[in-house]
C-alpha cells in the first residue's frame, strides 16, 4: 500500500521527519508528528471512519475540531478511552484506535439494516410501540440498549494521576486565535496577570490552516512573534491543549489541560478565578441541510482548508463547494492553490461577490449561482453530485467530485457566554446567535461576536485586552492593529433546508444522533413545538457533540416550519461541559484516604493493634464496636465486655464525645435557654445531665455539663452531633442573643476521655494512684475534680453511660494513650476489659438511657421518650418549650418509649421492626391502626440472660403489661410491654 496517498508533497505544519506508526481498526498506518488522528487517517485515504448512531450510515470526517459529529473513536490499550473525537486527538506513536458503534466492522456493519428500514424508525418511534404484549419494555429494552451507546466503558484502571490546580489571575483569555492572542498581547503588555488558554496543540486558531497574511507576511509569522513575546512576559501564562469547559458564577472557569508536560499527571483541571474574562472562542462553520448531506467526502469548507494548509493533506482529489456565503470562497481558492482540482462552486445565492467570482473563475473554478445540491451519488464516498437551479424545475446537472465542501455560514461559539448567564441574541444579518449583554465580568471578542474578518478579530482582541486590563488597574497604550489581507463580509443568505428531491429523501440536521429534517417536521406536527420539546423528542443536539455545529440549523428549520423568527424560538440551554472531561480529571487528587478525612483518638492505634473491630460511627471517627479476642465472634465479644462492666470493670475510650467550653458571665442564662432544665444552682465541681431540644420540639442531644469555675462550664455532647450542637448554639448566641456575655470554644480534639466503669472501678483507680479522695462520701455521683492519676494531671468525674460506678478521666489528648495504658496496667488484677461502642449501646439499652438519634424521630417529644423529669417546670422560655407545649395542648395519642420483653426470650426484636396490635400483617391503608409502633433497638442481654428491646409504641406508657406483636418477615412474635428500664431501676449502682 502506498504510504499516505493523500499527503501533499509539501506544506503544512506537520513534521515530516518524525514518522509515527499507528493502528486504526486493526490496520497499520503512518502519519507525522503534528497530525491529529483525523488528519493522519485522511492522509492515508481512509474515508469511512465511523457509523452513525441510529441508522449505522457510513460516516467520514466532517470537521477539524471539537465540533466533530462523526469521527469518534475508542482508544485501545492500557489507557482505553471511549468516544474520543479523532479531530482533536493528537497522533502519537503506537496509537491504536477503533471506530465505535459498528459491528462487525466499519466497512460492513449489519446495523445498516436500520437505514434500509429507516421509514419505520422516525423520531420517537419507540414512544409509539414496544407496548405489546402489555408493558414489556424490559424485554425490548435489553435489545435497544445494546444498540445504543457509542464506545465501551474502560475495564481497567490505569491508576494515573490527575490534579486540580487553583489559579487566580486578572485576566483569563479563552481562545488562542487571532482575537485571543491580540487580547493577550495588549493585556500582557499592561502588566496584568494573564492566563491564556487554547484547546488546540498550537496557538493560532484558524490561522494555523489559512493563507491569510498579517503585515504582508504569512499570518503564522505574526502568531509566532506574539507567542514568543507572551512567553517572555513573567505575568502571563499560556496553556495550549487546554479547553475551558465550564463558566460558573463569579467568573469561575474550569479549564481542562489535556497533556500537561509533567509526565506524572495525565490531566489537570484548572480552577480559574479571573477578575475579568475575555471570550475569544471563535466560531464554528455550520453544515447545510440537503439530501444525504452526511455522506463521507462531505466536509465543512474551512475544515478542508485546515487539512490542506495545516496538515498538508488533500481531503479529496476533485472538489466542489456548496455555499450560501462569500466567506467560503476563500476555502475553494485555497484548495485550488494547493493543487486540488476544484470543479465548481454551487451557490444558493444569485448575488455573490463579483470579485470573488472572478478570482475563482481565474483559478478554473466554475461558479454556479442560484443553485443547490439535489443529489449525492456514492454511499461510502461521494463520487458525484447533481445540482439543480433553485426555484425552477430546471434540468439537473451532474458534477463529478469526491469532496464536497459545505458552508452554511458560521455560528459564534457562545457556549461559555451562555453558561456565564448571558442571553444569546439572534443576528438577522448573520442568521445566527451572538452573545447578548454581559452578565458577569466578561467580554467577547472576535469571531465569537460575529466579527468574521481577520482585521476585526485583531482589533477586537487588542481593544478587549486593553479594556479588561485597565479595569483591573493596568492601563496601557493602544496597540495599532496590524494590517491584514482584505476579507469580504459573509453576505449570507440563510438556507435551513434545501428542497428534498423525493419523499423518502433524508437531510440530516444532527449527524451524531441521526436526526433528519423530517424528524423535526414530525415533532412539530405532533405538537413538540417548543425547541426544548423538539430537542427532547427527536434527541437533536443531545449527542456526543452536544449540537455544536447543528443546533442553529435546527432552530432555523423550526422557525421555517412554524413561520416564526429564529430569534423568537431561541436557543436551548447551554450547560457545562463545553467538551467532555474525564472522570479522573473531575475527581483530581480526591481519592484514597483523602476522599473523606478520618479522625483518630490517641487510642485508635491501640485498638487496631489489639483486635478492635473498627467502624465509622459518626463525626468521621473510626472507633471499635467491640474488641474481639482471637477467634471470638462479635456477639461473644460484646457479651464478654458487657458482663465485665456489670460484674468487674471495663474501660472505654470516650474521646469522640463533643466538648464545648462555655465561658462568660451569662453562662447560666445561656444554659437555661438551651437546656430544658435549670442551671442556676449548680455548684463549682458538680455536673448535671441536660437535655437539649430543637425549637420544633424534636430531641437534639443530651449530655452532662460540668461547672469547672464560677463562669466556666464544659458541655459534653454526643460525638455524631457535636458539630450540629455547636452550630445550633453558636447561631443562637451570634444571631438571636448577641447581648449575652457567653463565649463558646469547641475543645473536642483537645481532650482525651477515658472512662473506667464497673463495680471494681474504684479499686482500679486506687491502684493507679490518685491524689484525691475517691471514697463515695468524698467524691459523689456527678462530682468533678482536678486530680493526678497515674502521674498525669487530669479531671475526673463521676458520670456514666453504662449505669455502673464510673470514673471519667479527661486529660490532654497527648497523654491519652499513657493514661489508657496505665489504667490497663492498674486494672490487670481485676481483668479490666476494654469495651467498644456496640457494648456501650447494649449497656445503655439495659438502662434505657435515651439516644436522641434512635429513640427520637420527627415527631417524638421529650415527654414521649420518658425524659419529662429533665424539664424545669418554673422557668422562662427555652428552646423547644413552645413546640412541646403545643403537643401538650393538642393532646391525643403519643408515640412513647417503652420496654419490650419478647415471649420467646431468645428472639431479639430487630431495629426498625414494626409493632402490630394483632398478629396478622394487615398493611392496607385503612388498617394502618394495626401498626402501633416500631422497635428502636433490641439486644440479647447477657446480664439478664434474655432478649430485651426499646420501642416506640402509641400511648405505650399507659399500656405497661399489655401484649403486642413484633413483626418480622419470617415470624411475628408477641412481647410484653414493660417499664423502659431493665437493669438496676433505681440507679443504685452508678451512685455507689
Amino acid at each position, binding site marked *: 500500500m502506498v504510504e499516505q496517498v493523500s499527503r501533499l508533497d509539501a506544506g503544512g505544519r506537520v513534521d515530516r521527519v518524525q514518522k509515527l506508526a499507528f493502528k486504526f481498526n486493526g490496520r497499520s498506518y503512518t502519519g507525522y508528528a503534528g497530525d491529529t488522528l483525523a488528519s493522519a487517517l485522511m492522509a492515508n485515504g481512509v474515508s469511512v471512519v465511523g457509523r452513525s448512531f441510529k441508522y449505522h450510515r457510513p460516516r467520514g470526517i466532517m470537521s477539524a475540531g471539537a465540533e466533530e459529529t462523526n469521527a469518534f473513536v475508542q482508544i485501545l490499550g492500557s489507557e482505553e478511552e*471511549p*468516544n474520543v473525537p479523532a479531530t482533536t486527538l493528537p497522533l502519537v506513536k503506537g496509537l491504536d484506535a477503533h471506530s465505535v458503534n459498528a459491528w462487525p466492522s466499519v466497512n460492513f456493519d449489519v446495523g445498516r439494516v436500520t437505514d434500509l428500514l429507516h*421509514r419505520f424508525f*422516525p423520531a420517537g418511534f*419507540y*414512544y*409509539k*410501540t414496544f*407496548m*405489546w404484549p*402489555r*408493558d414489556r*419494555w*424490559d424485554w425490548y*429494552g435489553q435489545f435497544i440498549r*445494546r444498540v*445504543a*451507546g457509542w*464506545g465501551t*466503558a*474502560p475495564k*481497567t484502571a490505569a*491508576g494515573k494521576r490527575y490534579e486540580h490546580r487553583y489559579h487566580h489571575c486578572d485576566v483569563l483569555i479563552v481562545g488562542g486565535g487571532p482575537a485571543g492572542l491580540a487580547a493577550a498581547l495588549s493585556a500582557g503588555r499592561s502588566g496584568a496577570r494573564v492566563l491564556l488558554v487554547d484547546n488546540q496543540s498550537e496557538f493560532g486558531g484558524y490561522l494555523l490552516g489559512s493563507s491569510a497574511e498579517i503585515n504582508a507576511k504569512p499570518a503564522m509569522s505574526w502568531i509566532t512573534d506574539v507567542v514568543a513575546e507572551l512567553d517572555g512576559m513573567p505575568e502571563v501564562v499560556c496553556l495550549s491543549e487546554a479547553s475551558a469547559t465550564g463558566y*460558573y458564577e463569579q467568573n*469561575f472557569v*474550569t479549564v481542562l489541560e489535556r497533556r500537561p508536560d509533567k509526565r506524572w499527571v495525565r490531566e489537570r483541571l484548572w480552577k480559574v478565578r479571573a477578575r475579568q474574562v475575555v471570550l475569544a472562542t471563535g466560531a464554528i462553520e455550520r453544515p447545510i441541510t440537503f439530501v444525504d448531506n452526511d455522506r463521507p467526502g462531505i466536509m465543512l469548507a474551512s475544515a478542508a482548508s485546515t487539512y490542506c494548509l495545516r496538515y498538508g493533506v488533500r481531503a479529496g482529489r476533485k472538489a466542489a463547494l456548496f455555499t450560501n456565503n462569500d466567506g467560503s470562497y476563500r476555502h475553494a481558492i485555497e484548495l485550488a492553490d494547493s493543487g486540488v482540482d476544484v470543479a465548481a462552486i454551487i451557490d444558493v445565492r444569485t448575488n455573490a461577490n463579483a470579485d470573488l467570482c472572478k478570482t475563482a473563475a481565474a483559478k478554473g473554478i466554475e461558479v454556479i449561482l442560484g443553485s443547490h445540491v439535489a443529489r449525492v451519488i456514492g454511499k461510502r464516498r461521494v463520487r458525484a453530485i447533481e445540482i439543480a437551479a433553485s426555484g425552477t424545475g430546471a434540468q439537473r446537472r451532474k458534477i463529478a467530485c469526491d469532496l464536497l465542501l459545505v458552508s452554511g455560514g458560521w455560528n459564534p461559539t457562545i457556549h461559555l457566554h451562555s453558561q456565564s448567564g448571558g442571553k444569546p441574541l439572534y443576528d438577522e444579518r448573520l442568521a445566527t446567535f451572538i452573545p447578548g449583554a454581559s452578565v458577569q465580568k466578561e467580554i467577547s471578542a472576535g469571531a465569537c461576536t460575529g466579527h468574521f474578518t481577520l482585521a476585526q478579530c485583531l482589533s477586537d482582541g487588542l481593544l478587549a485586552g486593553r479594556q479588561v486590563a485597565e479595569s483591573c488597574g493596568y492601563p496601557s497604550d493602544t496597540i495599532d492593529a496590524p494590517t491584514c489581507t482584505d476579507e469580504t463580509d459573509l453576505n449570507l443568505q440563510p438556507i435551513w433546508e434545501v428542497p428534498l428531491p423525493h419523499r423518502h429523501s433524508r437531510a440530516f440536521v444532527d449527524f451524531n444522533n441521526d436526526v433528519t429534517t423530517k424528524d423535526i417536521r*414530525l415533532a412539530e*406536527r*405532533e*405538537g413538540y413545538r*417548543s425547541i426544548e420539546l423538539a430537542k*427532547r423528542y427527536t434527541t437533536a443536539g443531545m449527542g*456526543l457533540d*452536544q449540537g455544536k455545529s447543528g443546533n442553529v440549523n435546527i432552530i432555523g428549520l423550526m422557525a421555517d416550519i412554524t413561520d416564526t423568527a429564529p430569534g423568537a424560538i431561541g436557543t436551548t440551554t447551554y450547560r457545562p461541559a463545553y467538551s467532555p472531561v*474525564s*472522570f*479522573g480529571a*473531575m*475527581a483530581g487528587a480526591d*481519592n*484514597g*484516604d483523602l*476522599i473523606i478525612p478520618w479522625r483518630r483518638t490517641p487510642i485508635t492505634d491501640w485498638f487496631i493493634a489489639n483486635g478492635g473491630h473498627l*467502624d465509622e*460511627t459518626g463525626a468521621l471517627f473510626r472507633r471499635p464496636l467491640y474488641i474481639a479476642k482471637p477467634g471470638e465472634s462479635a456477639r461473644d465479644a460484646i457479651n464478654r465486655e458487657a458482663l465485665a462492666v456489670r460484674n468487674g470493670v471495663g474501660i472505654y475510650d470516650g474521646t469522640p464525645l463533643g466538648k464545648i467550653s462555655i465561658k462568660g458571665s451569662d453562662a447560666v442564662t445561656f444554659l437555661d435557654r438551651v437546656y430544658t432544665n435549670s442551671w442556676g444552682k449548680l455548684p463549682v465541681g458538680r455536673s448535671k445531665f441536660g437535655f437539649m431540644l430543637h425549637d420544633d420540639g*424534636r430531641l437534639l442531644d443530651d449530655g452532662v455539663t460540668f461547672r469547672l469555675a464560677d463562669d466556666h462550664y464544659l458541655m459534653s455532647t454526643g460525638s455524631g*452531633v457535636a458539630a450540629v450542637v455547636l452550630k445550633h448554639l453558636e447561631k443562637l448566641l451570634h444571631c438571636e442573643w448577641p447581648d449575652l456575655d457567653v463565649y463558646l470554644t469547641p475543645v473536642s480534639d483537645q481532650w482525651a476521655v477515658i472512662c473506667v466503669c464497673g463495680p471494681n472501678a474504684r479499686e482500679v483507680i486506687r491502684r493507679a494512684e490518685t491524689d484525691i479522695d475517691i471514697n463515695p462520701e468524698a467524691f459523689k455521683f456527678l462530682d468533678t475534680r482536678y486530680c493526678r492519676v497515674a502521674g498525669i494531671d487530669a479531671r475526673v468525674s463521676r458520670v456514666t453511660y453504662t449505669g455502673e460506678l464510673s470514673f471519667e478521666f479527661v486529660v490532654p489528648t497527648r497523654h491519652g494513650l499513657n493514661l489508657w495504658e496505665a489504667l490497663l496496667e492498674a486494672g490487670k488484677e481485676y481483668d479490666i476489659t476494654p469495651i467498644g461502642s456496640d457494648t456501650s449501646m447494649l449497656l445503655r439499652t439495659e438502662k434505657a438511657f435515651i439516644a436522641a438519634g434512635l429513640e*427520637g424521630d*420527627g*415527631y417524638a417529644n421529650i415527654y414521649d421518650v420518658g425524659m419529662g423529669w429533665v424539664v424545669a417546670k418554673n422557668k422562662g422560655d427555652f428552646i423547644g418549650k413552645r413546640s412541646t407545649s*403545643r*403537643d401538650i395542648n*393538642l393532646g391525643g395519642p403519643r408515640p412513647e418509649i417503652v420496654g419490650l420483653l419478647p415471649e420467646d426470650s431468645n428472639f431479639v426484636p430487630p*431495629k*426498625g421492626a*414494626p409493632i402490630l396490635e394483632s398478629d396478622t400483617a394487615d398493611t392496607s*391503608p385503612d388498617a394502618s391502626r394495626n*401498626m402501633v409502633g416500631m422497635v428502636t433497638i433490641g439486644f440479647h442481654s447477657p446480664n439478664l440472660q434474655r432478649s430485651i428491646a426499646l420501642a416506640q409504641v402509641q400511648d405505650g406508657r399507659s399500656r405497661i403489661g399489655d401484649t403486642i406483636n413484633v*413483626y*418480622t418477615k419470617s415470624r411475628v412474635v408477641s412481647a410484653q410491654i414493660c417499664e423502659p428500664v431493665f437493669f438496676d431501676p433505681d440507679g443504685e449502682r452508678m451512685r455507689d
Partner: protein
Amino acid sequence: MKYSALNLAWQGVRNHRGWRRAWRHATPKKAYDAIIIGGGGHGLGAAYYLAKKHGITNVAVLEKGWLGGGNTARNTMTIRDNFIYPDNARFHHAAVKSWHTLSSELNFNMMISKRGMTTVLMSDRDLSDAQRMINTTALFGAEHRIIDIEELQQRLPMAVSPARLPIVGGVYHPDVVMARHDAVAWGYARAASNLGVDIIENCEVTDIIRDAKGVTGVETSLGNILTRKLGMAVAGHGKHVAAMAGVELPIETVPLQAMVSTPVKPFLDNIVVLRGFNTYFMQSDKGELVMGSGTDPYPSYSQRGAPQIPEATIAAILQVFPSLERMQFMRQWAGILDLTYDNSPIISKTEVDGFYIDVAGSGGFKTTPLAAMMHADLIANDRPDPLIEAYSLERFSTGRLILERASYGNR
C-alpha cells in the same frame, strides 16, 4: 390514532403524514370545572385522572413554559421504594406499583423498565441502618435483601472495595423502576387531551382570585379564567404560587444537581447507590451514566449547579469504580426542589376552599402517577384518600411530621 407497531408500519409507508398532535394546543375557555396549575408529570397526570376516573373532563392545565419543562425534565428517572416511615413506606410502595402498567394504559411507551438497585454499604453502621429500613418496610411489601460481598461483586463486577470505606456488603432492591422522564409528561398530555382536557402552554398564572367561598378563578398571562376547583402541581415555585391564594407553605427551594457521561455500551444494569458517599449512579437506555448526590448546601433558584458537586460525586464513584477513570463527564444540570420542613410531600386541601395542592415531592418524579391520582381524587371528592392523609398541610400545625431523615441514620 393509536400508537402501535402496526400503525407505525402503516405510517412508515405513508411517510408519517397521518400522525396528529400528541395533544391539542388549546386556547383558554372562559371557565372550567377544574384547573391545574403546572404542566409537568404531576399536573398533567392529575388532569388525566380527573377526566378518566372522575368524569370531570372540562379541565384545563396551565403551563408557564413548555410541557414537562420543570423537574419532569430534570431528574434521574429513578423510582424506588426504600422509605422507612410507615406513611412514606405505604405511599411509596403503592407509588412504584402505579407505574407498572402506565405505558399501556396511556398508550405511550414511557420505557418503564425494572432495573433493580444495589446499595453499596461501606460500614457496619450503614449495614445496621439498612437493616433497620428493611425491617420496617418489609411490612409494607417492599422487597429489600441484604447481600454479602460475594453477591455484590457478582452484581457489580467492576466494584473495588476502597481503602477508606471498605465495602461490608450491600442491599439489593429489585423493585426499582426507571422511566423515560420526558415521556411521562407527553404521555399524560396526550391521554388527557384525548379525554377533552385543554392543555395550555406559555400561560403563566399571575394571581389566584377568591371570594368568601373560596377560589373563583385565576388571573393569567392569557387573561382571567374562572373555576371553583384549582389544583396546584408546581415545583420550584410552589410557595410563591400558593401565596397568591393566601396559603403559606413551609417550603424551601434547593437545587439538586445531576450529571451525565458520554454514552457507552451497556455495562451496568442496576442503579448503584454508594451509601457511604451519599452518591448514586446508573446507566440510561441511551448508554449515558446518570449520576447524582445530595442537594446543594444552600437554597437557590438557579437551575445550574456549582462545579464542586459533580467533582465530589465523580470522585466518590471512582473510589468504588476506579476503572471509570477515563469515562467522560458530558453535561451537568440542576433541578430546583421544593423541600418541605420534613422533606415529605404535601398533597392536601388548604384553608382556602377549592384550592388543592400537590407539591414538594422532593424528588417527586417517582410518585408521579400515584400522587396525580390522589390529587385528582382530592379535587373531585374534596377529601383525602387514607393513603395521603399523612401528607396534609395540617401536619405542620400538629407537629406530626414525616421526617424521614430523622430516622434513617442521623446524618
